[in-house]
């Protein structure tokens, strides 16, 4: 693979599930982590997962938090972590059949948690007002917060639902019931909209919160070192500030629907208990449909209408332009929203895996109760096979006789384990740690569900009714002696044909929206595939007609001739004044590499004038390098042109962020 490919479209790197090569890691140490931001997959076995994670200590059965005596608790604590998924299935069935306590049917963890809650909250009666604060980058936390608000309101609570960015910290002291739903990004960083509140809470100004009852729902991805870090920090900090935990924190992995629903029911139960009501058995934890019958847990099978490569011949890059039909779905979206795709794994990789394990591809395996599929199908469309996580290796160690794997997963070996995970996939794992002493069923039971990939939508529904367009950078690189492919991007690049279908859903993103007032000027910074949402913006503004505010796009890529994505469309919009101004930076056309931030600096004075005139600034694309550099450049421009200190400039930009005049969709 040419070196150029390694730096291939940053957008495509969302597909963190094809872990970056070590080379890339060296160059851009944080890509893998950034990538997680758009991902929200689904392990269906969250409870048992919890037992194997770092949190194992918290959740271990104790005399105090369970109906077991010391000896029983110890025995259970020893046996439970060693059980495979199928053993647990069997055991739970056995216990149910033995007419044991039906509570055991759900999960040990949940039962214990409910116990805990009851102990925590028994003595108090809490008010019916609840504040839900969410910190969301891509809209997952926001979506969950909205669901929670609805559920609680239906149960008779008065809910205040606020994004963290809009919440006035000095009001915190007055809040008595607080739910926090927050995701984690980068190296354990809070989402943009949570930064200020997070900082405040961790500062000396944070108030004593002894009257506060809280619970945290943390979103994250277990394949990253700082899994659910932001949620953990909020949880810990609120406790340090003398808040009372209403219900234990739930750390959700990429497939968060079920655990989040469970957390919500748990919170509701605790609240009801505190109100002195007996907890009503939860009716349904299924997420409610919004506008359309289709959503994340019930994706729409959408037909692909068009699939073209936007890069001209000779490019180092391949960027796919996908046009997808929404006809009959009832799905709607606004510019700035994202589309989730559940991709299929590469059949070549699946077949190699089956061959390596000498499995029978036709063997029927149980994915969950009532869902039985041939092994090959299950591996193709249901399980994640392109990324390794620590929990996965810990479980895999139980299925292999390999001493090396046992050694690697032994506490104290975190660094070598981390190094091993990087850039490797399931095929590496099964090749590296033979012999395997398990059935195919046992093996697949330890796998995570393949997560959906999110892509910023590149079209406007007003301009293209019943269609959604995407801009997907193909990810290909070599790692550990094998060519690796991005799951979804290479599906799009190599296998997806017009007429094929894809399971999709709309991911609304309130944090990346055109200004309410169409006359507001906009400044858009979107190099590479980061241009996607701005195509949507332009289509929308063109379609909805004048009067429209000025607009200014900064675009960059490697080469003018081959990599000027959507060139003829920008030209058209410049000609018909939908787009007022455009500056481009092609980094490999000149001896000295030029990027969008250089163009911004060159236009420093005018750019600041636009900002002073009320322009909203949007950034889309790679976070760690581009977005970071652009952010610094904005500060420099504000500092220089506004005659401010760096600190003042930071405040100025923070104020812009608070007032939604500085929005980012970065990954």
């Amino acid at each position, binding site marked *: 693979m040419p070196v150029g490919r390694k730096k291939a479209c940053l957008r495509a790197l969302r597909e963190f599930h094809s872990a970056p090569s070590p080379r890339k890691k060296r160059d851009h140490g944080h890509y893998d982590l950034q990538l997680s931001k758009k991902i929200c997959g689904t392990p269906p076995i969250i409870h048992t997962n919890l037992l194997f994670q770092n949190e194992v200590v918290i959740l271990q059965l104790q005399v105090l938090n369970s109906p077991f005596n010391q000896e029983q608790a110890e025995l259970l604590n020893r046996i439970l972590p060693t059980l495979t998924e199928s053993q647990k299935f069997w055991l739970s069935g056995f216990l149910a059949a033995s007419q044991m306590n039906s509570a055991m049917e759900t999960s040990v963890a949940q039962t214990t948690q409910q116990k805990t809650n009851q102990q925590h909250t028994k003595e108090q009666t809490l008010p019916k007002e609840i504040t839900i604060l969410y910190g969301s980058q891509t809209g997952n936390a926001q979506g969950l917060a909205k669901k929670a608000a609805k559920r609680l309101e239906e149960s008779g609570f008065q809910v205040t639902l606020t994004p963290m960015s809009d919440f006035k910290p000095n009001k915190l002291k007055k809040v008595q019931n607080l739910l926090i739903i927050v995701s984690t990004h980068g190296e354990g960083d809070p989402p943009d909209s949570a930064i200020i509140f997070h900082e405040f809470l961790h500062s000396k100004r944070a108030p004593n919160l002894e009257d506060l009852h809280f619970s945290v729902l943390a979103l994250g991805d277990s394949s990253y070192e700082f899994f659910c870090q932001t949620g953990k920090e909020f949880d810990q900090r609120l406790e340090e500030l003398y808040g009372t935990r209403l219900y234990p924190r739930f750390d959700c992995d990429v497939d968060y629907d079920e655990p989040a629903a469970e957390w919500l029911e748990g919170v509701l139960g605790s609240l009801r208990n505190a109100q002195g009501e007996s907890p009503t058995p939860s009716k349904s934890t299924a997420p409610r449909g919004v506008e359309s019958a289709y959503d994340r847990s019930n994706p729409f099978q959408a037909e692909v209408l068009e699939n073209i490569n*936007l890069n*001209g*011949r000779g490019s180092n890059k391949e960027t796919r332009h996908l046009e997808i039909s929404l006809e009959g779905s009832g799905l709607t979206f606004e510019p700035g929203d994202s589309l989730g795709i559940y991709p299929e794994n590469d059949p070549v990789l699946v077949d190699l895996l089956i061959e390596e394990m000498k499995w029978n591809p036709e063997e029927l395996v149980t994915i969950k109760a009532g869902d039985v599929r041939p092994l090959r199908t299950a591996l193709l469309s249901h399980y994640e096979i392109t990324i390794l996580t620590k929990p996965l290796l810990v479980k895999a160690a139980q299925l292999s006789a390999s001493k090396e794997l046992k050694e690697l997963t032994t506490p104290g070996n975190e660094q070598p384990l981390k190094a091993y995970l990087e850039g490797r996939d399931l095929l590496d794992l099964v090749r590296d740690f033979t012999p395997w002493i398990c059935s195919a069923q046992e093996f697949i039971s330890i796998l995570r569900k393949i997560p959906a990939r999110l892509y910023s939508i590149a079209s406007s529904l007003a301009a293209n009714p019943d269609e959604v367009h995407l801009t997907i950078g193909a990810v290909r690189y070599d790692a550990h002696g094998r060519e690796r492919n991005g799951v979804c991007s290479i599906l799009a690049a190599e296998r997806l044909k017009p007429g094929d279908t894809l399971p999709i859903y709309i991911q609304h993103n309130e944090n990346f929206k055109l200004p309410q007032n169409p006359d507001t000027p906009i400044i858009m910074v979107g190099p590479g595939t980061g241009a996607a949402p701005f195509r949507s913006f332009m289509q929308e503004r063109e379609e909805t007609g004048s009067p429209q505010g000025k607009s200014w796009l900064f675009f960059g890529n490697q080469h003018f*001739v081959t990599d000027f994505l959507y060139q*003829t469309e920008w030209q058209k919009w410049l000609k018909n004044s939908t787009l007022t101004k455009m500056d481009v930076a092609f980094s490999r056309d000149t001896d000295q590499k030029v990027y969008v931030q250089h163009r911004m600096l060159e236009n420093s004075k005018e750019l600041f004038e636009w900002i002073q005139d009320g322009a909203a600034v949007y950034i889309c694309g790679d976070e760690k390098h581009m977005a970071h550099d652009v952010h610094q450049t904005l500060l420099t421009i504000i500092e220089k042109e506004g005659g401010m200190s760096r600190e003042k400039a930071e405040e100025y930009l923070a104020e812009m962020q608070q007032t939604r005049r500085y929005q980012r969709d970065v990954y």
Partner: protein
Amino acid sequence: MVKQMLTAPVGAPSDVERIKEESNYLRGTLVEVMQDPISAGIPEDDNRLMKHHGSYLQDDRDLRNERQKQKLEPAYQFMLRVRAPGGVVTPEQWLVLDELAEKNANGTIKLTTRQSFQMHGILKWNMKETIQEIHQSILTTLAACGDVNRNVMCNPNPDQSEIHAEVYEWAKCLSDYLLPRSRAYHEIWLGEEKVAGTPEIEEEPMYGARYLPRKFKIGIAVPPSNDIDVFSQDLGLIAIVEEGKLCGFNVAIGGGMGMTHGDMATYPQVAKIIGFCPSDKVVELAEQTITIQRDYGNRSVRKNARFKYTVDRLGLEAVKAELEKRLGWSLEEAKPYQFNHNGDRYGWIKGMQGKWHYTLFIENGRVADFANYKLKTGLYELAKIHSGDFRLTANQNLIIANVPSQEKKKINELMEKYGLSDGKQHSALRRSSMACVALPTCGLAMAESERYLPELIDKIEGIVDENGLRDEEITIRMTGCPNGCARPGLAEIAFIGKAVGKYNMYLGAARNGSRLNKMYRENIGEPEILSELQVLLSRYAKERRQGEHFGDFVIRTEIVKATTDGTNFHE
């Protein structure tokens, strides 16, 4: 003398006339559009002006449809034509051009049919640097295209170098004198400051604000070689040598190749001799000829705007009279001359003063590194050690000229190392072939030319060999459109593109370039071309007379009717 009022054709000026007139002497908005970073192209109006600066905006037509689907603009790029009077450049200049082609163009150089260099595939942002480096090497692109006098051709004629030197000086003199005077070129490309506040100075004393109605071509031939196709020129000059000295030129006016398919009002034409002009008066002769075309040429319909149509419309005598009136003196009677051929003589030739000249066969003038033939590198290495000069021939070949005897061995060794040769391994037919650029870069092309002719000749060579004609020089030329860059009207066998894979086939031009050919078959593809040639060449091999050229043979045997004048080309 004819006493009549000459007039220009009536009719509204064409759009190009407006563009030139409004351009402020070729400036237009070139400075601004060349800086626009959103497109690698420039608007059509500016492209019209750009030609006068020696460049056309083109695009890679192979990629046009593909890129449109990819939402990319056409692969815009500039062709840059470097003029060198008589096609003479120093080795240092050769090195500069080679390096520029490598750095900023597509890595190849095209030697044109008018003894110029063309580079293709230059991106907009590299144009200024490229032109500046060309300028620094004391070459120019100014007026290499556009409605002005173009590169002045002259016979490189290495075996009579004293005459060549003198003819070359006249070519250079004419070329320089007839250049546009506007400073636009210097301002736009060379960073010259615009001099403000001198509007009373006439920028273009000869051309005027609208320049000429169409391009104007001058060429000087030195008999017996008519390699420059003197009768294809707007103004053709035939050097007359008396007692080993150049005494002046026979003057021929009104030649030109271009036509439009299906438009009988357009046709190739051969220039007609109107008299003799002494050497020292040739510059004013050229200037006044040009002013006649400036004043009476057709500015309404561009395809009828060449001087040949002006001459045919006004009448040769009337134009001659007007010219003599403007000159204030009369032309002498034309002097006898004899042309033998319009091709090149390959290989080593010893010239005067013990200098040697080697004519190198360069198929279709394309200097490139091919898979098994590192022609470009070879010439680059050669230029590094060569002490003489290089001369581009009118047939797209290259002469390594003025090699001292003691350096011949070194040159030979290098040529051998890189396989550079006189093309003796090829048939004489191939060595008498010429093709324009056409696809993928030329915007006018309707069919392949340079990329196809070699392949077609491979097949024709089979027929040639079967008929024992391997050493028979037959001029064969191909163009991708009827504008005639490879002078197809003067080839014994010509193909003019009509559509992809389809050509009109012409036969019967004179080997010495004095008679146009005639259409033989219309709109045919390769199988028909080959089957026709199978019959024709076989007949020629059997039925030709001693020394009879193919072009004459097809006339005598009434395969085609002779075209006695451009006006009966279509009959």
